[in-house]
């Protein structure tokens, strides 16, 4: 019914989600953004939409809400994609989904790159067990590793990836590199063979530093932990080069033209600040950014009525009520008394609290309905004023982002009153993602 009031400003180009999903050259879509902005739901909704538009899709999620995972049939962590039932496959597409099992992914790398004995030595090492169970960077690294594997299998037209809930949206770009460089870095070599390094001619100075250092390390970590680390490192030796190579390969994959990054945000200051950092970072790393998905945007079908006018009108109505009814409220029970509203005058003198002393007002016939109608109207107007204030705030926040990055295409997704945890809900989100500017859509109760 309204098409011009809350659509996106001309300053930000529109993100054409369907065009992106339909393009056979799009092979990977990465959803990133700060925590709590709806990344996982967005990734799932994109997956459903792409599959129903005819592509063979796999969605890799990291940490989905339980009910969302159940609705997609991936509540078990078995680290392999499962076909999602209930998706309309008429267009020839399919949807598969999987939840990342970080430890198993790490174990698989070890098993795939070392002979059986060595693999067992690594898997049983206490240091390895802690490392693989999820310390800083491992999750990010394993997500990228899994993405690499899925892409290499070439089994899917499109891979949609949800990124880990990092402390900052930028973490997942750095973590794989960091882990890769540590695992085959200088320090690990020192740990592994301090004697070798120290024994070389011309390294005397370093030698002193080294022995002092390994001594310190031993003191600090306790001899047993140092030994665990050393055996781990020794066992992993053959794999180090591999780690670096793999991290580099994944990194290049992310830069490839078939990859599209979607930065997901909510129209809130912090989320959009993170989004802006992310956009800048992606540009610096030459990663292909497709656009910004702005979730949970509010709209109003009555945007022509400003918050100020609505409040003023509510106040006018409220004044009318206070004159008629000392409580400022309306008590329909009293008004509907079968005796009608005739002799309340006596009661008026009796009490100042006026519990139910309603309108001995000018128009005795219309009074009850008009008073309750006025109260309801005032409530609706105050609600509308609140909505318009939210709208204005969201718009200001969004405008700040588009002023900084006018080149970034944007799509807005209208806020839903509740959470999404079924395919129908994901489909509805998909519609909103693709349509854009649907923030005024009045029929949310489909």
């Amino acid at each position, binding site marked *: 019914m309204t098409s011009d009031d809350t659509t996106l400003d001309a300053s930000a180009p529109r993100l054409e989600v369907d065009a992106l999903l339909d393009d056979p050259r799009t092979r990977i879509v990465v959803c990133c953004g700060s925590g709590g902005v709806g990344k996982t739901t967005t990734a799932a909704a994109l997956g459903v939409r792409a599959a129903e538009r005819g592509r063979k899709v796999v969605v890799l999620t990291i940490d989905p809400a339980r009910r969302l995972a159940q609705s997609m049939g991936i509540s078990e962590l078995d680290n392999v994609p499962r076909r999602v039932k209930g998706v309309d496959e008429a267009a020839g597409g399919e949807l598969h989904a999987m939840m990342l099992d970080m430890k198993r992914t790490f174990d698989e790398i070890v098993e795939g790159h070392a002979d059986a004995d060595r693999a067992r030595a690594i898997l049983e090492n206490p240091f390895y067990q802690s490392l693989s169970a999820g310390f800083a960077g491992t999750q990010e690294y394993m997500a990228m590793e899994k993405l690499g594997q899925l892409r290499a299998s070439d089994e899917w037209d499109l891979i949609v990836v949800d990124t880990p809930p990092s402390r900052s949206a930028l973490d997942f770009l750095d973590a794989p590199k960091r882990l890769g460089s540590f695992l085959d870095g200088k320090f690990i070599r020192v740990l592994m063979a301090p004697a070798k390094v120290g024994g070389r001619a011309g390294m005397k100075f370093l030698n002193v530093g080294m022995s002092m250092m390994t001594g310190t390390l031993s003191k600090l970590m306790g001899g047993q932990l140092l030994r665990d680390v050393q055996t781990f490192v020794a066992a992993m030796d053959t794999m180090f080069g591999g780690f670096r190579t793999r991290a580099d390969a994944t990194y290049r994959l992310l830069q490839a033209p078939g990859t599209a990054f979607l930065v997901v945000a909510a129209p809130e200051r912090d989320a959009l600040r993170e989004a802006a950092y992310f956009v800048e970072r992606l540009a610096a790393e030459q990663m292909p950014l497709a656009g910004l998905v702005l979730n949970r945007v509010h709209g109003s079908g009555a945007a022509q009525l400003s918050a100020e006018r609505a409040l003023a009108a509510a106040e006018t109505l409220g004044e009318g009520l206070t004159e008629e009814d000392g409580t400022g409220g309306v008590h329909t029970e009293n008004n509907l008394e079968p005796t009608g509203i005739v002799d309340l005058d006596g009661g008026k003198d009796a009490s100042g609290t006026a519990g139910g002393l309603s309108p001995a007002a000018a128009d005795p016939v219309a009074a009850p309905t008009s008073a309750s109608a006025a109260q309801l109207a005032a409530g609706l107007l105050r*609600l509308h004023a609140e909505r318009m204030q939210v709208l204005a*705030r969201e718009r200001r926040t969004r405008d700040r982002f588009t002023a900084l990055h006018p080149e970034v295409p944007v799509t807005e997704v209208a806020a839903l009153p509740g959470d999404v945890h079924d395919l129908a809900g994901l489909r509805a989100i998909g519609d909103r993602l693709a349509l854009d500017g649907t923030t005024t859509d009045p029929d949310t109760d489909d």
Partner: protein
Amino acid sequence: MSRLHVVSGKGGTGKTTVAAALALALATEGRRTLLVEVEGRQGIAQLFETEALPYEERKIAVGPASEGASRSDSVRGGGGRRAGEVHALAIDAERALLDYLQMFYKLGSAGRALKKLGAIDFATTIAPGLRDVLLTGKACEAVRRKDKQGRFVYDAVVMDAPPTGRITRFLNVNDEVAGLAKIGPIHNQAQAVMRVLKSPETAVHLVTLLEEMPVQETADGVAELRAAGLPVGGIVINMTRPALLDNGDLDLLAARGARAGVAKALSQAGLGGARRGGLADRLIDPLLEQAREHAERVELERAEYAELTAIGLPTYELELLPEGVDLAGLYQLARDLRKQGPI
């Protein structure tokens, strides 16, 4: 009463804001609190509208005056007590490790050599949990620190901690490290930190919204913390909004003639003609739609609220600030927290 307040919550629930408000709330007259950040985001500096925090404790705010105290009393301390103070610290794991090495081993240049080799990076990023031990260790050190007279330097330490999904692991990592490093200084350090974290001196508070996912995470988080033997404090329900209309109102609206009555009322309030197709009449459908959405949300929020209270922890509520959180808003939230009793 707890002296170390660990504030966690799902991403997007406003845990940094709540941690800052709590640090202010606890900084009553004559008291000093330390607000600690561990994730390197500089969220505190942004909230307090100051430049990025260095790795150094510094005063960033005075506590709000208590209700009824006159201005001169509380701020000036004219003959009375000095205003409460909030200090802040952004803990950096790498610097904390170097400090630690310096303090215990007088490493000096060897520390720099370690850094050059990437050992410090290694230790703070990869070595299992060492990073977390350093971060929690620094906070615990601040909790236990005393001045020359033997009084605690900080009356309370508030930590803006990692999100709910990681909090138990973050706090309990010391146990794991203690298990991994069975002897040596790391082991001892981990044990000492764990003693503070598991004592009644510590309280872990979870921030949530009245939405399904944050509430679910809160319930899960509480269960995990309890299972790990970590002391859970309270639940802070953030960004609550008043219910302007409820289902009762909607029922009224559904009554016969209500629509025309509302249109008439809108028209009387100066919003155009009430007849069919008039300006006031055209407002009704969108307004009713908003009312339905609102009522649906209120209903959902009630259900979520019931789930939260079923957890059986003290709850605190903070209203949504319509204009977002600025410094004035932060003080408002701090006062609101204070009004709700000791946390």
